[in-house]
């Protein structure tokens, strides 16, 4: 049929299709239930997700990468490249990908596209989705450009579902306007758990993530953490942020500080 049978690692992504059922109708059937709660590692079947994030931090792209890894799994055999598309405003606001900081199993496979305008970025995203040799596509677009309207969003969804390549679109400093993404996240950085050997240092990344719109899952609010092996989720607010013992009262200051 399509490449769903051909590649086992993509098969995990999509819920099993009943015989004679078209792809587009699956989400409708499942959305009728809408009882499942999202948890890391669950097969979402979602090819197009949006992540709304502030531009002054890297949490949007980081969560998109973590979700991509969560969906595809770490597969040493999978050496397909992946695409990271940024428009000019996103590049200026949040910087370029930095190879030594990327996850080790992804850093040598990155292909980066620096588009000038949002139109070019959308074109690059769509071309990337239609390519059979890419593992997944990550887009970063700043603000609410006129080009990224509901029609453009729907185009991306259709391309992603037709060719089975997953897209995580990071929207920096954007309003939650109309969009056809199957899952929409809102994310900000959260205090990281203190590392075991140096509690004063920043630890493994953590994010406050809110799933505020999903076709097949109930909305929810989590604190997500990126352990080295997998994505871990806790219900939001279950743990007070721990800042180690670096924060001192003003009386504890040394006199030399003035």
């Amino acid at each position, binding site marked *: 049929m399509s490449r769903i049978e051909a590649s086992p690692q993509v098969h995990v992504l999509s819920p099993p299709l009943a015989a004679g059922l078209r792809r587009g109708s699956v989400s409708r059937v499942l959305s009728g239930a809408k009882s499942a709660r999202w948890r890391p590692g669950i097969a979402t079947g979602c090819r197009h997700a949006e992540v709304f994030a502030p531009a002054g931090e890297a949490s949007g792209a980081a969560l998109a990468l973590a979700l991509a890894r969560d969906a595809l799994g770490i597969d040493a055999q999978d050496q397909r490249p992946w695409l990271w598309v940024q428009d000019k405003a996103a590049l200026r606001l949040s910087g370029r990908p930095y190879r030594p900081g990327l996850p080790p199993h992804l850093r040598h496979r990155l292909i980066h596209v620096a588009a000038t305008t949002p139109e070019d970025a959308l074109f690059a995203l769509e071309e990337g989705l239609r*390519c059979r040799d890419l593992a997944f596509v990550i887009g970063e677009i700043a603000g609410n450009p006129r080009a990224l309207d509901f029609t453009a969003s729907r185009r991306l969804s259709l391309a992603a579902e037709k060719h089975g390549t997953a897209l995580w679109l990071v929207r920096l400093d954007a309003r939650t306007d109309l969009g056809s993404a199957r899952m929409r996240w809102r994310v900000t950085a959260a205090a990281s758990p203190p590392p075991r050997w140096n509690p004063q240092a*920043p630890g493994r990344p953590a994010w406050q993530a809110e799933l505020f719109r999903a076709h097949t899952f109930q909305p929810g609010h989590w604190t997500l953490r990126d352990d080295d092996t997998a994505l871990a989720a806790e219900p939001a607010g279950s743990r007070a942020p721990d800042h180690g013992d670096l924060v001192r009262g003003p009386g504890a200051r040394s006199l030399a500080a003035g």
Partner: protein
Amino acid sequence: MAIWCADLALDRWRLAEGCAAGEGSDAEPLALIAETAHGPRIAAANPAATAEGVRTGAMLADARALCPALAVRPADPAGDLAFLESLALWAQRWGPWSALDPPDGLIVDTTGAAHLFGGEAMLLADAHAQLARRGLVARAAIAPTAGAAWALAHFGPEGAILEAGDDLMDRLAALPVAALRLDDDVLLLLRRLGLKRLGDLAGIGREALARRFRNRRSPGANPLVRLDQLIGHVPEPLLPVIAAEQPMVQRRLMEPIRHRPLLDRVLADLAEDMARALEGRGEGARRLEMAAWKVDGDVLVRRLEMAAATRDPAHVCRLFAARLDDLDAGFGIELVRLSAPWTEPLALAQAELDAAAERHGTSLAACIDRLTVRLGEGAVRRPVPRASHLPERAQRWAPPLALMPGLQEDFAFHERPLKLLDRPEPIAVIYEAPDGLPRLFRWRGGVHEIARAEGPERIAPEWWRERSTVRLRDYYRIEDSTGRRYWIYRHGLAGDGRGGAPEWFLQGLCA
């Protein structure tokens, strides 16, 4: 065999003018000039001008003072070189391979080929006759080594031939030292040392020469190496000129076309012809050039470069379609030509049966080609590690399908940010802790309170690459009170004598 076209630039000009030597416009004093930093300079002068005292290398203003009637034309060194290349290919009629000797010479290997022309003397006579028929004034000589042949062609008697058994040094001793193909400053030095002939050089002993020129590595600056090459004691590799036939297809049109749909049709036909031509050679195109000749003689050229070798007509047409939008057909296009200057071997592959391509999507190379054509050359790239410890130099951007260079592993204990700002942004420190780290700072209008930090990681400037006044950096990985993680650094130390108080910058955004 060495061939020296003594007046190549002038001969080319005469061929372009269509006049014989000393006739027509060549009868008047004329010079070809080259633009230099100090104004126009004479590159070549014809015999009439030389008789008036115009010398090659003189300034045009000086030459005008000697000969007010001097006519000038611009010289064309690039055209001369291209002509020399085609001449080198043509000269392979006398030997299996030939090499360029810029700016105006050729070397042809005639080893074992002379008997085909009836001996070496007949070969030289043939070369003279053929070159004269092409309108070139040339001198040729045959010798066992390329260096000796060059020396004889430039400074020896007309039509000189050295046999393999001759004592080369003995026969060449009377030639001037300029016959060694040395740089000008070395020739000046030799003249000041009183060494004028090759025999003088051979007379003073190898040790003295070796000591005097011990730190000159390049052959053009070391007379001893050139002398050994001349005699044949040291090999002298030459780069042969090889004709690479590039696949080319063209369509002459009965009626000049002025509209885009017709041009697309022609281009589709050409792409199919090109695919057939490439398939016959077992190659795929990396670069394609489309040239369209307009009725008024103008040529429109569009170039295309592909990420991987391909010969798929549909793909080529699609890529060209984006490049043809700004084509101005004027009164019409009457000839369209498609050529592939850069090809790579590409084996035959199974054709896509039925509508498989529609379902399977595009291949990576096709996807990258489409992106590159629309977004530009430098927009699609991949990061490649580079051996540098400065963070912004530790990666460079390479074409997406280029081979990854072999490098050692990165340090696993360095925590690096997920993203790096193109230019580090200064942060204003509001309140500094006693250990030197800011407690409160302002960046992009927001105030950040540092809750946790790790550092410093001191990164010194690369002194072998940068000036000595570049300041070192102390990097800190920080997390602010709302959990945002950044990579900041202090530029310099207080009192390091390299500027004022240290400044703080934010360079990276951590995951």
